[in-house]
């Protein structure tokens, strides 16, 4: 099992797989963004209560979902680092953090821009907003810890522990709107129920969410692949890949 896992996650294998996903998810993201933006800006109705400002939802909710999804990805990758010492997983976890922080910031900022016209306030200290802000600090802490420790493997393990402990914040964010009295509205879409919203709104939200996910896959793999290439530049497979064409000279 262990040997199989290491072979599967070998740097060379990772490089090939990443290339495959970067290409196809890249095209997927383009198509999804094009159709998602068309739906969210032109082909979906204004909300009967919130008017046109509902269109902020198509950025805000996908960003917030990504912020949690990326954290879970980072924590799982960290688990692979801690338990099986897989280098590619460390590269993925490291690449996740700035992207996760970016989407958390985007969720907070667009939430603010939505809150101002709807609630009359840029910010309120309620459970949802506060726990999302804590998520931002978790990402920043992870990045700080990574750069504070010189030895990259030790840094990945230390930050990995932080990532795994911090995952407790994810269900808190998710259920915060149910556990506490809050200004923030409840979940727009749940897995267990049929969506209560208009079909075109639902399509807009799904398209944009998928576009954000695909974007993340491409962005994270590009960064992780670069890091692996840099670390592995003296290994045989990199020499074969980049030096092979020059043997004729």
């Amino acid at each position, binding site marked *: 099992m262990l040997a199989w896992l290491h072979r599967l996650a070998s740097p060379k294998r990772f490089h090939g797989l990443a290339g495959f996903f970067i290409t196809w998810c890249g095209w997927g993201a383009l198509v999804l963004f094009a159709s998602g933006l068309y739906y969210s*800006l032109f082909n979906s109705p204004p909300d009967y209560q919130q008017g046109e*400002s509902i269109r902020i939802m198509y*950025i805000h909710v996908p960003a917030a979902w990504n912020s949690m999804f990326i954290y879970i990805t980072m924590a799982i990758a960290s688990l692979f680092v801690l338990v099986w010492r897989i280098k590619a997983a460390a590269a993925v976890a490291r690449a996740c953090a700035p992207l996760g922080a970016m989407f958390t910031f985007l969720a907070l900022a667009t939430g603010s*821009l939505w809150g101002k016209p709807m609630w009359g306030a840029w910010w309120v200290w309620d459970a949802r907003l506060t726990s999302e802000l804590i998520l931002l600090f978790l990402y920043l802490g992870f990045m700080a810890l990574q750069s504070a420790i010189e030895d990259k493997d030790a840094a990945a393990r230390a930050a990995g522990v932080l990532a795994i402990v911090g995952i407790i914040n994810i269900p808190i964010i998710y259920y915060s709107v149910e556990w506490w009295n809050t200004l923030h509205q409840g979940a727009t879409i749940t897995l267990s129920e049929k969506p209560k919203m208009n079909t075109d709104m639902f399509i807009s939200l799904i398209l944009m969410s998928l576009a954000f996910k695909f974007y993340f896959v491409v962005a994270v793999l590009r960064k992780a692949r670069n890091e692996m290439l840099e670390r592995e530049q003296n290994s045989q497979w990199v020499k074969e890949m980049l030096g092979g064409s020059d043997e004729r000279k």
Partner: protein
Amino acid sequence: MSVNEFFHMGGHGFYIWVSYGLALVLMVTAFIPPIFQERKLIKQITRRLRREQREQS
């Protein structure tokens, strides 16, 4: 619907366009550097490998 009306967004134009603009700016800025980094990295490694090969022969 006129172009003006579209950008006005029923009075919420500012909030909506700043949201979309911010998303665009952030996602593009995060995406560009790794592309150049990869190009530079490949160039560096190829050059080094070529040099080593020359030294060997």
